């Protein structure tokens, strides 16, 4: 179990670094896939089988395919994408991330969580999770279904067929958005 954790943790971190460092958007997306799969395996080591399956289905299956579709639709639009040049923002970004990791590492190192607790026997099974989801969290569950519906409609409206009064094709990046 310990070996598996370190293997998948290393894979997840390598994938995450690949997303941030990759020059090409496709490579970033494939690095993201590595992280998704590794996190799914980590869910398995935490005995959260349903979430592991959902992670593969939703993230590695749906979200990543969506990303790749958009990358292909943009047709090379991602190639100008080196690291952002603004020095101050870069320093702030790295500093904030490092501070967050440091603080959370300190909190973790000094917390009570190092002592394990015993698990209830039907731990993480789909049935117990579903029972919880359809009783105590029923309202949240229904709200997410509404959210997904709204997201579908919104995505279709935003990315759907062009209206004739809009400019056709990629326009000059500097013109005003409502200019035409």
């Amino acid at each position, binding site marked *: 179990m310990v070996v598996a954790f370190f293997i998948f943790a290393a894979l997840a971190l390598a994938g995450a670094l690949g*997303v941030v460092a990759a020059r090409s958007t496709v490579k970033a997306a494939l690095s993201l896939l590595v992280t998704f799969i590794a996190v799914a395996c980590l869910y398995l080591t935490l005995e959260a089988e349903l979430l592991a399956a959902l992670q593969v289905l*939703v993230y590695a299956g749906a979200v990543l395919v969506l990303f790749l579709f958009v990358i292909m639709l943009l047709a090379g639009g991602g190639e100008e994408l080196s690291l952002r040049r603004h020095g101050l923002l870069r320093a702030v970004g790295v500093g904030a991330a490092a501070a967050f990791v440091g603080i959370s590492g300190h909190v973790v190192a000094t917390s009570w969580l190092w002592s394990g607790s015993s698990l209830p026997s039907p731990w993480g099974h789909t049935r117990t999770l579903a029972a919880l989801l359809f009783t105590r969290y029923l309202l949240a569950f229904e709200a997410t279904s509404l959210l997904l519906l709204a997201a579908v409609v919104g995505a279709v409206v935003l990315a759907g067929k062009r209206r004739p009064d809009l400019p056709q094709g990629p326009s000059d990046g500097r013109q005003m958005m409502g200019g035409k």
Partner: protein
Amino acid sequence: MVPAGHYLVLGALLFGIGAAGVMLRRSALVIFMCIELMLNGVNLTLVTFSRQVGNLDGQVAAFLVMTVAAAEAAVGLAIILALWRRRGSINVDNLNLMKW
């Protein structure tokens, strides 16, 4: 058994890398991927706490986060597509129309 702290540190690292990516990258697409990274880090933390406390509420929260992330990705990528059609660029440095 791996101590829960290891998982939490990994979740924090994933979140930190994602946050750094949001600050560092210029492509709206890659920024979206970094947001997904941050959400994954948070989900890992939620599942770890759920496991450690012996209570499935954390897993339900992770499930809901996953759903919201999927919806966010769909709408966000649609916005990026619309942006590409209107502006011909998804470089966030060019999107300064509403900046004072």
